[in-house]
C-alpha cells in the first residue's frame, strides 16, 4: 500500500486559464523534486494539463490535489482533479479516442490515461467528477489500470 503523507498534500484551485498554467508549473516542480526523468515529467505535466482543462471546461471549475507518495523506496506523485459539475454519463464512451462533446480532439481522457501509471475515474451524473492519476518515479512494470 502506498504511504500517503497528508502533510505533503496541497490543493491548487482550477478556476481560470491562468490557473491551468499554475497547475502545470506545480506538477512540473513536484515531479522534478522527486527526480522524475524529463520524459516522465513531460508526460505527467501533459496529462495534468488535459485533466485540469476538463475540470475547468466541463466540470465548471474545481481543484487539483497533489500528493507525494512513498512506495517501498520508490517515489510517486498522485494527482486528483475534482469538480462538482455535471459528471459523465457514459465513462466508456468518454474514454474513447476522438469522442468529444465540445470542440476538442477528444483525446484528453484517453490520452492522459496512456501517459500515467495508474488512472481512476470516479463520476456520477449530477455529482461531479474526480480523476486520479499516479506516476511512479522509476519505470515500474506497468501497473494495473483500472477504470471504474
Amino acid at each position, binding site marked *: 500500500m502506498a504511504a500517503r503523507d497528508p502533510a505533503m498534500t496541497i490543493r491548487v484551485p482550477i478556476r481560470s*486559464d491562468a490557473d*491551468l*498554467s499554475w497547475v*502545470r508549473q506545480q506538477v*512540473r516542480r513536484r515531479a522534478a523534486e522527486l527526480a522524475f526523468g*524529463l*520524459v516522465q*515529467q*513531460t*508526460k505527467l*505535466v*501533459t496529462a495534468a*494539463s*488535459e485533466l485540469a*482543462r476538463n475540470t475547468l471546461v466541463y466540470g465548471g471549475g474545481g481543484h487539483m490535489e497533489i500528493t507525494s507518495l512513498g512506495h517501498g523506496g520508490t517515489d510517486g506523485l498522485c494527482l486528483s482533479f475534482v469538480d462538482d459539475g455535471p459528471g459523465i454519463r457514459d465513462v466508456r464512451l468518454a474514454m474513447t*479516442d476522438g469522442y468529444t462533446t465540445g470542440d*476538442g*480532439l477528444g*483525446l*484528453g481522457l*484517453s*490520452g*492522459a490515461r*496512456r*501517459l500515467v501509471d495508474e488512472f481512476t475515474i470516479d463520476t456520477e451524473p449530477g455529482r461531479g467528477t474526480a480523476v486520479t492519476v499516479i506516476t511512479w518515479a522509476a519505470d515500474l512494470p506497468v501497473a494495473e489500470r483500472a477504470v471504474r
Partner: protein
Amino acid sequence: MQLSEQETVASSARALTGFLTRRREQIAQRWADVPLFRSVFTVSRDEAVEACKSVVDALAVVASTGRLEDIEAPGFDTVREQLGSMSGSRSRIGLSPARIAEEVAALRPSVAELLRAEFPDPAATEATEGLLDLTILMGTLRLVTMQTALSAGEELIARQRQQLHEVATPVINLWEGIVAVPLIGTLDSARSQVVMESLLQSIVTQRARYVILDITGVPTVDSLVAQHLMKTVAAARLMGADCVVSGIRPATAQTIVQLGIDLGSVLTRASLADALAYALRHQDIDVSARASLR
C-alpha cells in the same frame, strides 16, 4: 439634501461636516505639503492646495450623509479619479500599496489637531465623538484610496498581459518568402488567436511561401496546443503558404504520440535551422560555405 434624511444623521457627523467646511482652507494648506500631494502636484503648490480642497469637500459631503464607514458613499465619487491618479503616481515611483495607505493615514493628525482646537474642553463628549468620527472617516478615505490603487493595478496587469501577447509573438522575416514565429510559453486560446492573425497578415505583406512555427519555447504540448498548431497550419495553407513546425523536443515527441495526436499531416523538422534549410531548398536557393581561397 432632504430634511428627513438630514435628521437621521447623527449630530456628531453633522458637527464634523460643519468643521470640514469651515476649516477647508487650513486643512488644505496643511495637506498640501505632505508627500502624497506635494510629489504629485509638482507644478505649483496652488494646484496641490486645490486638490486637497476637493478631498476635504468630498469628506464633508460624506460626513453630511452620515455614511462615515461606507466606501461606496456618493461623496467619494468626485475624488475617486483624483485619488486614483495620485496613488498611481506614488506606486510608479515604487511605493507599495501599504506605503500609500500609510501616507493617507498620515493626513489625519493635522486635521485632528485642528478639530481638537475647536473644543475648549478636549475631554468633552462632543470632542471625543468628533475625533472618533474623524478617525472613522479618514479610515474610509484610506480604503477608498487603496481600492482605486488596486483596481489601477488590475488594469495595468490586464493591459500588460495583452501587450505581452503581442510582444511575445513576433513574426520574423527570415528570408525572402520565408517567415518564422518563435512561440514561447503557454499557447492558450487567446494567444494562439493572436499568433494566427499576425501570421496570416504577414503571409500577405511578406508574400511568404513558407512559414516556420518554432515551438522550442513551448514547454507543454497537449491536445489543445496541438489543435491550435494544426488549425494554424491549415489556415496558412489556405493562404498559399507551406508550414513547417520545428523545435519539437524528444520528450514532447514521445508524449504527443502517446497522447494519440496525429501530426502526420504536419511537416516537422527538428530545429529552426533544419526548417529554414528545408524552405530554402524548396525555393531552389542554394546556401553553401564559400570555398576558402587560400
